[in-house]
Structures are given as C-alpha cells and as structure tokens.
C-alpha cells in the first residue's frame, strides 16, 4: 500500500474552508497527546488551556487585549501575503513602531494634549513603515529575498530597543531598572470601560473592516490580488510589481508599528526591554488561519490570543511551562500549512500489487 498526493484538476473551495477547521482539530488532538505524555489528564488540560480563559469577564478582557495587536498585524500581513510579498519581520516593525512612537513621551515628557496621542500613533506607524521599507528596497533594488531580510531585521530592532531602554532612554529616576519613563495622561491610549481593554482593539477592528473593503471593492485590492495571483497579467494590466512590493511592505509595516505603539501606550504604559511576546510572529499564523481574509483574521486573532492565555492558565493550574502556548501555535501553523496542501491535492491510496508504470 502506498499513499500518494494527486493534483486536483482545480482548487477545492470546500477544502479551503475546511482546512483551518481540520488543522484546529488536529492541533487539539496532538495537544491532548502531548498533555497525556506529560502525565496529565488530556481532557482537563485541554479545558484549562482552551476553555478556562474565556470563562470570566476579566479573562475575556485580557483576551481582547491580546487579540488586538494580533489582528492589527494580521490584517496587514494578510494583504501582504495575498500579494505574495512575504513579510516575516512584523515583530521588528512592531518594535520600531513602539520605539518611534515612544519618542514623544520620552523627549517631550510634559506635552499633554489629544494631539500627543495622535502624534504617537502616527510616529508609530511611520516607524514600522520605514523599517518595512528596508526589505522593500532590498527586494526591488537587488532582488534580495524579503523573507530573509525582514526576518533578520527583527533581531536588529530587538537589540536596538534593548540598548535604548537600558541606555539613553532609561528613566533617570527609575532606580536603574531597564525601563523608560512611565507614560501618563494623553500619552496613554484611553480604555474602553473599566478594565484593561483600550482603543487599540477598536483600531484593530477598523483596520480589518477598512482592508476588507479595500480588497473587495477597490482597484488597489484588485491590483494586490492580481499581482499575487498572476503577476504577468498584472503587468499586462499596467501594474508594477515593484510598487506592489513597496505598498505591501509599507502597509504591513505601518500596521505592525501601530500595534507596537498601542502595546507600549496601552497595557505596558512604558518601554521595556521586551515589548511584545512575539505578536509579530504569531500574526503570521493569524493571517493564514484567517485565510488571508481581513474578516477571517478577526476570528483567527481571537483564537490565537487564547493560546497566549491558555499557556498562562496551564502554567498556573497545571504547573507546566507557559511555553506550551508556543507549542500549540507551532502545531497550528504546521497543520494549517499541511492541510492547505489538500486544497490543491487529494490523497490517494495505491495498492502495492499494481506496479506504477511510467509515462
């Protein structure tokens, strides 16, 4: 007996929708096996990981706080990936956005006006976009692979942020802790309601709706779909492949930067050596799980946010490392990419008695 993959005559629309569900199912199944291997009751562990985080108001608020940056970055990446521009460096663009936006409270500590916040958010977007411009330039000028350049720049941004927070941007009255000054008043994002949910969540939903509109109704969305789908036809339509790379990198960079400044002006309230728990990388999974559809990304962002909370919840209740959350994220990405194969191929069982003939 032999398993082979046979190319389908055309893309299976059914599988395109079924694939994420299948992937989630497989992730849960293998998660259960991992829990069992650690000597835990798999059902209890799965409950703690997936269900417990959404059982209290407090944890649902926390879920929204975590989902907001994932969605914000994820929609940008979804557009970028739709154009087949592989921006893997959103984490770096997030950090640069956070650093750029933080310049206002650090250098103009006393400036308090609604404009302060607007300036911070705009600077955050510019910082992320400029950092996304580097791989765009290298790609369009030297044909350097953006996967490599954008990924490597993540570490540049990470070390730059670390150095700034420990060195020149450290709070002079901060007892030598590696932190910037605490942001205050209009240097912080307003919260929605009493808890920790801030308007970053609103920005994420607005971005998703705006990009959903752009992709479905406008010529720009048409251009992005066509350049990702059939670049030769795109050039025939008069679109430029280079401009598409620039647009995708600047857009996804700006949104990652916005997520970065929203993180420091929101939950953190100051710059710290580590700004994000890997939102920029997790958002890659969010974009694919959401089928590169901005509305789908909203749901995927919420689901992936659970994996962060589930990790913490597992650490507290079950006594295993919170890193289990990353294990689940990794499995989910692996399974979704594997299941996506079934969109273009079908699995076929060959009996070994009949030898395959060439030709």
């Amino acid at each position: 007996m032999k398993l082979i993959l046979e190319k389908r005559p055309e893309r299976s629309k059914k599988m395109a929708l079924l694939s994420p569900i299948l992937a989630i199912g497989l992730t849960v199944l293998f998660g259960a096996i991992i829990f069992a291997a650690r000597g835990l009751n798999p059902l209890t562990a799965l409950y703690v990981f997936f269900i417990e985080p959404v059982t209290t108001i407090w944890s649902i608020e926390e879920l929204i706080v975590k989902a907001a940056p994932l969605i914000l970055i994820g929609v940008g990446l979804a557009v970028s990936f739709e154009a087949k521009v592989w921006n893997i460096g959103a984490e770096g663009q997030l950090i640069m956005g956070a650093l750029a936006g933080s310049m206002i409270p650090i250098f103009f500590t006393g400036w308090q006006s609604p404009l302060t916040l607007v300036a911070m958010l705009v600077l955050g977007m510019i910082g992320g976009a400029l950092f996304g411009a580097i791989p765009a330039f290298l790609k369009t000028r030297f044909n350097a692979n953006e996967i490599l350049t954008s990924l490597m720049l993540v570490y540049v941004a990470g070390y730059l942020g670390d150095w700034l927070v420990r060195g020149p941007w450290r709070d002079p009255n901060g007892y030598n802790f590696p932190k910037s000054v605490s942001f205050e008043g209009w240097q912080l994002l307003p919260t929605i309601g009493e808890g920790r949910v801030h308007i970053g969540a609103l920005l994420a939903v607005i971005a998703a709706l705006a990009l959903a509109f752009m992709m479905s109704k406008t010529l720009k969305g048409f251009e992005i779909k066509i350049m990702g789908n059939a670049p030769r036809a795109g050039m025939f339509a008069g679109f430029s492949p280079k401009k598409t790379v620039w647009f995708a990198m600047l857009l996804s960079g700006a949104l990652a930067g916005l997520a970065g400044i929203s993180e420091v002006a929101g939950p953190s309230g100051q710059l710290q050596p580590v700004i994000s728990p890997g939102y920029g990388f997790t958002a890659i999974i969010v974009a694919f799980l959401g089928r590169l559809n901005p509305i789908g990304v909203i749901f995927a962002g919420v689901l992936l946010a659970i994996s962060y909370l589930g990790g913490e919840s597992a650490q507290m209740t079950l006594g295993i490392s919170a890193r289990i959350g990353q294990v689940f994220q990794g499995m989910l990405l692996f399974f979704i990419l594997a299941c996506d194969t079934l969109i273009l191929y079908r699995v076929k069982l060959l009996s070994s008695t009949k030898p395959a003939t060439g030709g």
Partner: protein
Amino acid sequence: MTDFNRGDAKQLLEVRNITKMYGDLAANKDVSLAISQGEIHALLGENGAGKSTLVKVIYGSLQPTSGEVFWQGEKLTIANPAAARQLGIGMVFQHFSLFDALTVAENIALALPGKLDLPKLSEKIARVSVEYGLPLVPTALVADLSVGERQRIEIVRCLLQEPKLLIMDEPTAVLTPQEADQLFETLHRLSNEGCAVLYISHRLDEIQRLCHNATILRHGKVVATCDPQEETAASLARLMVGADVHEIKTRSAPQTGKAILSVKDLAMKPDGPFSVALKNINLNVRGGEIVAIAGVAGNGQGELFDVLSGEKLATNNDDILISGIGVGRKNINVRRQMSAAFVPEERLGHGAVPEFSLSDNVVLTRFATSGRIISSGMINAKASQNILLNIVEEFDVRKSGPDPEARSLSGGNLQKFVVGRELDRSPSLLIVNQPTWGVDAGAAALIRQALIDLAADGSGVLVISQDLDEIFEIADQIAVISRGQLSKTVPAGDLTLEEIGLMMAGSHENNAHQNNNDANHASEATP
C-alpha cells in the same frame, strides 16, 4: 561527414507508423523514421509540426497511441526516460535543467545512477569534456557559466552514459555562431565514433552542413525524407512550409491611411539566458492595413510584443510612435489611452487571470480607458458586467453561467473573449500575438474575420503569428522575424512561400547585418 556510409551502418532505431492523438487532434500521424549508427539525422518542421511529440515518444516521456518502436532490430516499448537512457538514448533539451548554486560535477552527479564518487567523477568529466572539445571545469559554479557552457554540461552529462543515440532539441538556438561551430565539430566526432544524432532544428544552413539525412514533418505527418546535401535551402524551405498552402488571397487594395504605429531602430538587450535580443527593428503600420510578422517561435516575438505593448519599456521614448507621438518610455495604460489595444500570446496568466471571473478580467485591460469602470478608486462591477455582456454577444463566447472564472472556458472561447475585450473598444491600433494559437477552426475564422473588419474600418493591425496559412489569409504586408531581427516589410502578394521559408530560416539576417555595417560606415563618413 564523408565517413558515414549508409550501406555499412547497422540500423539503430526505427519507429514505424507512430500516431499520437490528443483528443481529436493528431500530433503525429503514421510517422516512420529510421536512424543508423553514426548517422546525423535531421528532424525538420515548423512549430506545431509534431517534432517534439515524436522525440518525446522516442525518449519515452510519451506513449504513442499506435505504432511500433524498434531498437537495434528488436521491437520494444520505451516506458519512460529512464528506460530510454538505459538503452543508450540521451537527450539534450532546449531548456536546461541545472541547479545554479551547484558545481558542474555536482549537477552531473545528480543525474547519474549509482553511488557518488565526486573526485573520480570530476576527473572523468574533465577528461571526457576535453576529449570531445567541450572543455569544462568540474568545480565551476553553474551560476557563473555562459549559456554555451551550460549546454556543454548537458551534453557531457549525456556522453558520460555512453549513448548510442543523442537527441538534440534546437541546440543552436541559444548559442553564438562560434559556440555553434564548436558544437558541430563535437557532433561530427561523435558520429565518426558510431553515435547517432537526432538533430531537431529549423535552421536550414545548419542542417545542410551537418546532417546526413533529413525527415521533414508538417502537420504531424512525414512529408519528405531526403538527403539535405542534395537539396537547396529553398527546396527544403518549401518542403517545410508546404506547397499546399492555399492561394494567396489578394484583397481589394487596402486604403492605407497615415502611420499609426512606427518603430524606429528599436533595440533591446535580452533579459536572461533564454531571452532574445531585439536588433534594429524598423516597422510601420498604417491605418487600414494588417501587417503580419512571421517567424518560428522563440525568435523574439514575445520580446517584441512586450516592448510594443509597454510591459517592457524601450530605451528611447521615440523608438516607438503611436499616431506620431513617442511612447517608448510610456506604460501600457498610457498606450491604451491613445487607443491602442493588445492581445498577448498566452491567454491564461497573461491575457486573463485564470482564477478571476470574466467581468474582473474585463477590468484587467479596460479600467484605464473606460471611465465607467473605476470611480474614485472603486470598481463598478455593474459597468464591467455590461461590457462583458456586449463581448459575449458580439463574439459568441460560450460559457457556463453568467460570469464564470476565466479558466473554465475552452481555449477558443477564452481567446474570443480576450480578443473581443479589446475589439469592443474599437481601437485604432491592435497588436496581437498568435491570435488563433491552439484555437478551434470556428473560433479562428471568427477572430480572423474580426481582425480584417477592424482594418477595414481604418484601424492599423499588427499580427505576430507562426501560422503562415493565417498570415497569407489576412495580411496585407509581411515581415519576418528571426533571431531578434526583423526583415523589411513586403506586400503579401509579392512573396512566395519559398521566400518566406528562407527568411524564417534566417536568410535576411546577414543582409540586415551588412546593411547596418554600411549604415555605420556611412554615418562615420559624413561628419
């Protein structure tokens, strides 16, 4: 060449009555061919004559619908290329399969069966390659090598397996004349050692110089087997093109208006190793006439189309003029706004996006010229659907459902859509590459009629085509492209098939070259 004597040589390969059907289309019909040891045998024919199909059958990558294959007198089935290689059949493809990032020796090692001993293999490569006049450095990276050197790797890869029959598909298409000379020496040497060569080409001079026998295919059938030494280039050309092309239809003299498209001394560097350089292209298309560019595929037609359409920009703005205005540096939509329209060769993926609906494919080429489709950056689906309705009705596009994906249409219907999408605008200039390639007869007739009608309405039409029947059916003026050089434009009535066949084989190239030199000298002389 004189060493080869048919009488002495033992027969190596014979195929008898090979027929290969694709649906109703016979790519090969009753093709028979015999090659003896040490014979260099030419397989000659236009594109689509069935050369590749026959070679694929011999190399085992296609199975014939009917017919027999004999190898050294023994009837057998060649199940796949691996089986062919085991028999001693090697093939050098026109497009190489080499890894740029690996060395010469590593690339060759990948193709060889058995255990790998790189140092020993490298030594063998160096020895064999020098022995056959194809020197190669085994440790060189493929990325650093010229196209000619890359071809040597492919040849040496075959030679290491000590083939009895070597198949070469258009080997000189990518070579400089010097590299080609060197290749011919190698082939003579192989022939003297008893290795047979099946040489596929449409370059008549090469075949006369190199080959002992020639089999000429046309429309999938063998039309002649001959000794090329005893033929003239002209008679070979006539055999290849076919004397049965129907009568040249002299249309009522076209009322030619002013020049709509002018190309002046256009030259383009090649994009990559498989791209053709364009050299000093001069061309005029006047209103009311159809100008056709004939030529065998891969001689620069695609490159010419891209630069005329604006998908690639010319060096100078005045290299290309539309209605007297320079557009060489302007993009395709600027040219469309000047009432030019374009239909590329490849329907799926170039002329249309396979996964997009037909109405979205209307947007593809019409958004820049139809004010109704785009308003403030948004696509008006209603407008593109209305245009689609017009096209469907006027050009009889048969499809499933009101607005299906482009790839669900048959080739002929999709081509009617792609041509109709442009004609629906009544452009004053239409440039179309292979208008009826792979299209059924009914759709082809409809498209040709539409082109003639467009010219009759006073528009200029430039048709790039490999199909001589089509060219003689619709063209008023004919030029021929060969290796990126365009011949002078000649009225269709003044050309015989023989002449056009010779031009396709490159007879105008040297002349053109000579003229350039003269022109250069002249310009040097005048201060």
